[in-house]
C-alpha cells in the first residue's frame, strides 16, 4: 500500500504539494481550551437542552465568539460569567450558583445521605431491641402455654 502512495505522490506533484498538515481551526489553542472549559458549563439559550460547546445554533456561535474575545482580552472566568448572567440570567449557567434559592439544591443530596444513614442506623438499633423483646415475650408466652396445658392435664 505504501508503495502505491509513493507512486501517486511521485506521479502527481500537485497532489503531493497538497499533502501537508491540516490547520487547526483555532488560532490559539490555549484560548480554545479555555473556551471549551467554559462552554461546557453554559447553556445554549435557543436549543432544547444543549451546552454552548455542543450547539451549532447561530446564537451559540455568536456567544462563543463573544466569549472567545473576552478570553483574548484576558478577562477572568468570573467576569465572563457575570457578563452572560447580567444579560441572560442564571438560566445560562448549567452549574447553578449557590444562593438562598438554590441552597436546598446543593445541600439536599448530602442531607439525604446523612438523613438516610442516620435513619438506617436507628432503624437497625430499634429493630434489634424489638427482636429481643419479641423473643423474650415469645419465650414467656410458651411458658404460659406450657403451664396452662400442664394445668389442664392435671386432674
Amino acid at each position, binding site marked *: *500500500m*505504501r508503495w502505491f502512495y509513493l507512486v501517486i505522490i511521485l506521479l502527481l506533484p500537485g*497532489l503531493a504539494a*497538497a*499533502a*501537508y*498538515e*491540516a*490547520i*487547526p*481551526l*483555532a488560532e490559539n489553542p490555549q484560548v*480554545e481550551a479555555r473556551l471549551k472549559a467554559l462552554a*461546557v*458549563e453554559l*447553556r445554549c439559550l435557543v436549543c*432544547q*437542552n*444543549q*451546552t454552548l*460547546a*455542543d450547539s451549532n445554533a447561530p446564537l451559540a456561535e455568536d456567544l462563543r465568539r463573544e466569549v472567545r474575545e473576552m478570553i483574548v482580552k484576558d478577562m477572568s472566568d468570573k467576569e465572563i460569567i457575570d457578563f452572560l448572567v447580567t444579560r441572560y*440570567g*442564571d*438560566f*445560562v*449557567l*448549567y*452549574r*447553578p450558583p449557590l444562593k438562598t*434559592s*438554590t441552597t*436546598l*439544591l*446543593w445541600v*439536599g*443530596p*448530602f442531607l*439525604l*445521605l446523612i438523613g*438516610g*444513614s442516620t*435513619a*438506617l*442506623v436507628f432503624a*437497625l*438499633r430499634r*429493630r*434489634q431491641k*424489638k*427482636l429481643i423483646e*419479641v423473643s423474650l415475650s415469645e419465650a414467656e408466652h410458651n411458658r404460659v402455654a406450657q403451664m396452662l396445658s400442664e394445668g389442664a392435664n392435671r386432674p
Partner: protein
Amino acid sequence: MIPEIGHFALILALCVAVVQGSLPIYGAAVGNSALMSVAKPAARGQFLLVLLAFCCLGYAFAAKDFSVLYVAATSNSQLPLHYRLAAIWGAHEGSLLLWVFILTIWMVAVSFLSAHLPEAMRARILGVMGLVSMGFLLFMLTVSNPFERLIPAAFDGRDLNPLLQDPGMVIHPPMLYMGYVGFSVAFAFAIAALFGGTLDAAWARWSRPWTTVAWCFLTIGVAMGSGWAYYELGWGGWWFWDPVENASFMPWLAGTALIHSLAVTDKRGSFKAWSVLLAILAFSLSLLGTFLVRSGVLTSVHAFATDPKRGLFILVFLAVVTGGSLMLYAWRAPRVGLGGGFSIISREGMLLANNVLLVAALGSVLLGTLYPLFLDALDLGKISVGPPYFDTVFVPLMTPAIFLMGIGPLAQWKKASLPELAMRLRWAFGVSVTTALVLPIVLGHWSPLVSLGLLLAIWIATTIATDLRERLAHTDGNSLFGRLASMPRSYWGMVVAHFGLALFITGVTMVKGFEVEQDVRMNVGQTATLGGYTFRFDGTQQYKGPNYIAARGTIHVSQDGHDVTVMYPEKRRYTVQNQTMTEAAISPGLLRDLYVSLGEPLDDGAWSVRLYHKPFIDWIWGGCLVMAMGGVLAISDRRYRLAWRRKDVEVPATTQMARQTVS
C-alpha cells in the same frame, strides 16, 4: 378499515382491562375462586387484542396509509420500511401503544409463569396490572389515539424526525419500555401482597426474578440510549443528564436498590416494608418519567410533542396509582412483621447501607431534575441544572456505595467482624490504591478524579478476585473449572454484574481523563495527527440516500505508516423536513474509538472537521451489557428453574433434598 379495527380492538381491550382490574381483585377479597380465575384468560385476551391493534398500526405504516393522522405525521413514502415500522413508536401516540403492548406481554408472562403462586395472589397481581393497563388504554382512547383519521388524507407524510432514523430507534425504545413496564410486575406483586396481607419472605422470592429481568432490560435500554446519543448526535458525548435520560436513570437506581433489598428480604425476611416501598418507587418513577417526557414541563433534548391535556391526564393517573399505593402502604406496612435478626455490621447491614446510598443518589437526580420546576413554580427565577451539578454531587455519593460494594459480598450474613474483613481485604486494598496512584502517571496524566475512578474500578475487581479465591479454597472438587462451575449461578450473576460496573467505571474514567479532540480545517490531501493516529482527508462526494442527500467525506486513518481504517463521516440533509444531520463516522475498538464528524464546508473543497480519540469508551456500554448478563445469570439460577416447574412435576421431597445437597 384496518385502522378502525385497531381502534376497536383497543376499545375491547379497555373493556377486558376493566374486567381484569375488578373481578379477580374482588374475588380474592371474598374468596370466590370463579371470579379469581377470570384473571388469566382476561390477561391473555387483552394481549391478543392489543397485539391486533399493534399490527393494525404497523399495517397502516407499511401500507403508507396517510389518511391516519399519526402515520402522516411520523412517516413518509420515501422512508424505508424498517424505519416506517419503527415509526410506530416514533412519537407520543404510538409509543403509548408500545407501552401498553409491552405491559400485556408482561401480563401474559405472569399468567404463564405463576403456576406456583397461590390463586388469590395471582388474581391480585394480574388485577393490579389490569388496572394499570386500563389507565393507559383510557389515556390512548381519550387524548392520544394513534388511529385518528386525517380527512382528507395527506398526499404524503411529514416524515420521521431524522434523528430517529437510525437502527437504534428500532430496538432502543422496546428495550427501555420492557424495563420500565417490567417494574409494573414487581409493583403488582407488592400491591397484591399489601392487599392480601401476605407480605412474607415468599413474596420477596417470587418478586426477585421478575425484578431482575426488568432491571436487565432497563440496563440495556438505558445503555443503548446512551450509545445512540453518542453516535447520532455527532458531538461525541454519551450522557448529558438531560431530563429524559434522568427519567430513565431514576427507575434504574430504584430497581438496583430493589434487587439488593429483595436479597435481604428473601434471606432474612426482614425489611419487607422497605422492599415494598422500593417496588412502588421503581414503577412510580417509570410513570413519572413518562409524565416528564410527555407533558413539556421540562425542556429536554428529546421531548415528545407536548400537549397540556396529556400532561394533566398522566399527572392524574400518576397521582391515583402512586398516591393510592402509598396510602395502601401507609395503612398496611406498619403491620408487617420484623423478620430475622442481624447485626449492623453484616452482609444485610451493608446491603441496606448501599440501599441508602442508592436512594440518596436517586433523590439527588430527582432533586436536580425537578429543581428548575420548583423554583419556577415558586416564582423564584429560572435556572438550569446540568452536567456540572450532577457530576459534582453524584461522585461523592457513589464513591462510598462502590466501596461498600467491594466489602459486602465478603461479609458474613447475620454478623460480620470489621477487623476480620479488613484483614481479608488488605491485599485488595493495597493493590487498588497503588495501581490507582501509579497507573495514571504511567499513562501520562495524573488527576485526582482519574485516580479515584481507577481506584473504584480496581477495588471492585480485586475484591471480586479475593472473594473467588476464598470461595475456591472452601469448595471441594477436582478441577478448577469444576469448582468454579459448582458455585451457584446467582452468585455468578452477582460477580458478573459487579464486574460489569468495574468495566463501566473504567470506561468513564479513561474517557474523561484521556480523551483528546481537535477541530481542524482540512483540505483534500491534508493530514492531522491525534492520539498517535494520522487522519488524511480525501475530500467529499455527494450522494443520494432514500430520503436525504448527503456529502460523504473520506478519511484515511493510519498509524505509524500502517493503514488502520477508512472512515466516512456524513453531512445529511433530509429533504422532507429540510433538516441537516451530522452522521459521525466511528471506528470502534477495544481500547479506543476514533470519532470523526464533519463540520461545515469551507472554501475550495475544504471542510471543518472534528476529530476525537476516545480511549476505552466502548467499555461504558460493554460494562452495562456485562451488568445485564449478570442479571441473566442470576435468574437462570436453579432455584427459579425449579420454582417455575414445581406445579407441573411435584418433585418428591427426598429428591429435592438430594439436589440441594448436591448444590
